[in-house]
């Protein structure tokens, strides 16, 4: 029986068709991703009247509008921060632009809840500045404004990542052509350059918008009632679990509509239709004395996103120690975070590879499209939604509830798109002919993957792993909801201390978190440079 199954699975499949082992593994992963939203839906249908009460309340409409306004403002603000930096580091002669480009991405290592905590610990009542100046000045940092600024400051690097390659790939001849018709620089930028940057702007903006919708820590600390905060409060305090589930489902729908909107507005327009290979690199714009303005601008952003967090955290750490406060070691938390994030990264990468192969090599195969769409659902689903649905599922699956397996599964579901995307990019660079050549030289499919495809595509696989590792250590809501008993991650420590404004106690785990996150960023930077 087992032998029969084995021969069925390993049966050499026809050329051009994916092997059965590949289809099965991709199908298993994809079907797991549909479990959380499906479970949430069952739960709502089960208590449909309570769910309807929660969804059709006036407060829910207000909540939706407020969250949308918040998401749009954050995305716009992040674009305004990222676009000049991307332009300055790609197209001008700004000295030290390479280092600036690296530093400008570094805020990705700082979770938004740490960013929010830093703002409060610096500018809030009883914060660092009022402490140093010995004067309590009332800054309006809480609420919509504060949450928006924090989110934009710590998410703009996502746009930088999509914008910089797009700006670098611009064909300067198009701008020269526009200039030859007598149009000035500004008109050329608006009519020729900006439309070409649209795909990069909208894909980067989509990432930020979805991040903003899903982010739980920062709005909670900034006391802004976003969707995630309201859901969490309902779940935690009032035991209105059906209401929480209904709102979580609504949030998932909003996220999906934003994805759909992006896909729809992108439409069928082509921006690369007449790109000619090997176009000249754009000439660098000489800044002259404008460079001081550029430095001031970039300096302000970096001061707010890098210097301030590290400075404020160090200040509180030293103050805490000198005040004789009990600063417990974070060694245990560091180890556990490392272990869980490392494990999540490995499992996610392994789960992503069959799907990436399917989408790159077998795009015509009938199941490829549905599998791809399903596996990308984690991209749109907020962590809080996935976490909540697994908590509800845990009521029936007691063995798994608060187990490491369930925690890791949640991370895999959420971060699978990161690993698939990275693996896809590098698989696309592996020419199919070298796989054919290897087959022709007497190797089986699996052997070819092991000896040719994987070694050639390893950069993308490592990139995916590093991205998943980075996002896992920063992740908050899923970790809060699903943490096994006794599991204490750095993120949880930072959260529990800072939500009660124990800044000195939050400082050490937060600093440890920053150090830990900078390693995957360094790996990503190294891989990016060697391309």
């Amino acid at each position, binding site marked *: 029986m087992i032998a029969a199954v084995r021969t069925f699975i390993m049966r050499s499949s026809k050329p*051009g068709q994916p092997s059965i082992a590949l289809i099965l593994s991709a199908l298993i992963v994809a079907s797991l991703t549909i479990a959380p939203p499906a479970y949430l839906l069952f739960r709502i249908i089960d208590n449909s009247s309570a769910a309807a009460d929660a969804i059709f309340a006036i407060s829910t409409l207000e909540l939706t509008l407020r969250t949308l306004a918040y998401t749009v403002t954050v995305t716009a603000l992040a674009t305004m921060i990222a676009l000049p930096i991307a332009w300055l580091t790609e197209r001008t002669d700004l000295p030290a632009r390479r280092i600036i480009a690296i530093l400008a991405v570094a805020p990705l290592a700082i979770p938004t809840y740490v960013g929010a905590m830093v703002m409060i610990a610096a500018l809030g009542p009883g914060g660092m500045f009022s402490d140093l100046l010995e004067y309590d000045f009332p800054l309006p940092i809480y609420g919509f404004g504060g949450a928006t600024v924090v989110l934009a400051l710590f998410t703009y690097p996502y746009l930088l990542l999509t914008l910089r390659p797009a700006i670098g790939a611009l064909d300067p001849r198009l701008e020269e052509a526009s200039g030859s018709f007598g149009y000035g620089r500004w008109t050329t930028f608006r009519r020729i350059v900006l439309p070409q940057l649209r795909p990069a702007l909208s894909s980067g903006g989509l990432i930020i918008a979805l991040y903003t919708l899903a982010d739980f820590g920062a709005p909670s600390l900034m006391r802004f009632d976003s969707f995630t905060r309201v859901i969490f409060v309902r779940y935690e305090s009032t035991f209105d679990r059906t209401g929480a589930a209904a709102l979580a489902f609504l949030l998932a729908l909003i996220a999906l509509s934003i994805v759909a909107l992006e896909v729809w507005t992108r439409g069928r327009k082509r921006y690369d239709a007449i790109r000619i290979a090997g176009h000249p690199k754009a000439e660098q714009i000489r800044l002259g004395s404008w460079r001081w303005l550029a430095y001031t601008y970039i300096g302000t952003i970096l001061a707010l996103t890098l210097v301030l967090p590290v400075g404020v955290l160090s200040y509180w750490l030293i103050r805490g120690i000198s005040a004789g406060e009990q600063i417990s070691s974070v060694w245990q938390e560091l180890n556990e975070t490392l272990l869980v994030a490392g494990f999540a990264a490995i499992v996610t990468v392994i789960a992503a590879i069959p799907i990436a192969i399917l989408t790159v090599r077998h795009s015509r195969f009938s199941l490829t499209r549905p599998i791809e769409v399903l596996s990308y659902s984690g991209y749109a689903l907020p962590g809080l939604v996935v976490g909540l649905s697994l908590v509800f599922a845990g009521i029936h699956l007691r063995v798994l509830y608060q187990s490491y397996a369930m925690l890791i599964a949640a991370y895999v579901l959420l971060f699978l798109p990161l690993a698939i995307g990275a693996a896809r990019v590098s698989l696309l660079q592996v020419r199919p002919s*070298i796989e054919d*050549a*290897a087959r*022709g*030289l*007497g190797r089986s499919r699996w052997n070819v993957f092991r000896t*040719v495809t994987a*070694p050639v595509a390893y950069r993308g696989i490592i990139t995916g792993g590093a991205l998943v590792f980075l996002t896992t250590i920063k992740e908050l809501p899923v970790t809060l909801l699903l943490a096994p008993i006794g599991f204490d991650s750095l993120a949880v420590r930072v959260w529990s201390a800072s939500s009660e404004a124990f800044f000195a106690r939050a400082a050490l785990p937060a600093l440890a978190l920053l150090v830990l996150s900078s390693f995957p960023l360094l790996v990503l930077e190294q891989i990016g440079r060697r391309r």
Partner: protein
Amino acid sequence: MNIKKDTLALRASGLCASFDGIEVISDLTFDVREGELLAILGPSGCGKTTSLRLIAGFELATAGSLTIGGESVIESNNFRPPEKRGVGMVFQDYALFPHMTVLENIEYGLQGIEGQHQMTAQALAMTNLTNFGDRRVHELSGGEQQRVALARAIAPQPKLLLLDEPFSNLDPSLRSRVREELHDIVRQTGITTILVTHDQEEALSIADRVAFMTSGKIVQIGSPEEIYLQPASIDVAVFIGETNVLYGVVSNSSVDTPLGTFAASDNGSIAAVLVRPEHLVLSKIGIPATVTHREYYGHDQILRVQLDDTTLVRVRIDSRTHHLPGDRVMISLSEAPLVLAASG
């Protein structure tokens, strides 16, 4: 030449293939004898590369059968995967493994084979790559990469060697030298070879036989001379070399053209008279014409001349004769033209 007339290295019969329901190969039937070099020639998109991939096992046939070295590899539901066909292939982009050295590339196909070091050394020596073993693939020139691809393909001593447009990625100035080298190597090993190309000069100059393919079908198969001098259709004739095509209606078993009257069959049908430019000469007596253009090539030249009834023909002449547009000349045929029925 060491072609064994009686032993078949490959027999394809009735092979068909389709992509998304559109047939791209229909009824592919041909034999290759042991030690023979067969060129499949045709315009791009005619299905020649797909034919090669069918033989190698990278595409699926929808019908037909294929035997390689007497062993059936495609037959109804029996499909032998590429790794079990013993076929060597040189890809158009060479498909070298970028993460391996030259030596590792060549050894890749010899894993677990006894005497692999000797076989590798032999393949390196044969392709003049003996000192290149430790080089990385991206350090090599295009011609060197092509030799590595060839060495890798022949190292396991395959029953059949497939070459997919092996010269198309080379600099034109390198092409004839590399072609000569490859021809020598293939001859030395005596390996049965199928070469796919869209370059008629390439096909004619190195193949023992040429198969002309268009729209997924083989139209004609024969020696280079047969293909050039007795093309089976106007398509073949025009593709394989410059041709003046003149049409006329057949009456009294002959067709009347501005270049003369020639025997033809099927009274009432339209016949095509095919005259290669080198089969026309300038002469003292003949058909009067006016030179309109001159294309000077060095080794020879083409005169475009207009006959007095306005028909334009191309005449190939030696490179020393000097004529300018406007000159009056006389042309005549040096060889009997080919008369074909004009289909359609």
